[in-house]
């Protein structure tokens, strides 16, 4: 009998991350990385107070957690699988820990911070 894979855990997070990345990231990147620095958006748009109060409410917390953590899982999963695609097999377990470890940290850190805000 074949062994059950644990992929469903990582794949679900990957899938959720992919959805977030597709439905939100292009606009988010545009806003934070392009529109705001180039002054297309007024500087107040992401002012500290505004964002801080956004991060204090539950919807804001959830949103921020989702856009930070889930894309990281998506990214970690793809990078890890791509190593296999590229034929890089050395240090496979180390890479696994590195990829998914980063994503895990990227989940725990905002989680703790957001709870405390």
């Amino acid at each position, binding site marked *: 009998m074949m062994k059950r894979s644990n992929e469903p855990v990582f794949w679900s997070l990957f899938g959720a991350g992919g959805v977030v990345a597709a439905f939100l990231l292009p606009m988010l990147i545009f806003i934070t*990385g392009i529109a705001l*620095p180039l002054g297309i958006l007024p500087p107040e748009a992401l002012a500290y107070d505004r964002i801080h109060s956004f991060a204090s409410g539950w919807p804001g917390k959830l949103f921020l957690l989702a856009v930070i953590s889930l894309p990281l899982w998506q990214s970690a999963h793809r*990078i890890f699988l791509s190593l296999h695609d590229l034929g890089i097999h050395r240090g496979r377990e180390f890479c696994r820990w590195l990829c998914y470890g*980063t994503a895990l940290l990227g989940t725990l*850190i905002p989680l703790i*911070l957001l709870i405390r805000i």
Partner: protein
Amino acid sequence: MSKRRPYVRPMDGWWLKNPYYVRYMSREATSLFVGVYALILLAGMVSLACGETAYNNWLMAMTNPVSIGFHLAALAAAIYHTITWFAVAPKVMPALFLAGKRVPDIAITTTQYAIAVVLYLGLFCMVWRV
């Protein structure tokens, strides 16, 4: 004695051998940008938690031309991700049936684009509404 000697071709460099594979690898490569961007957001999050000065420094750093360059590239990558994601989503979702007929893939993909446009505009307006 059998003279059979099946020949197995090597796989190295496979991803360059077919345009389809190049597109696939590019799709996978978008995850690098997605990951780095998420880490940048994480940095912003941390700075937000550290207080106003830290946060403003983070905002400041975002205006660095290198940063803007990166974000332009990341935007392109994110859009490519979005296009490819919507294209394959109908293959992952359970098959939808309406009135006994399979909903065609193209209908599902189009619907996703419509939702995405609404979300993009909503997000932009939310931020804009100072």
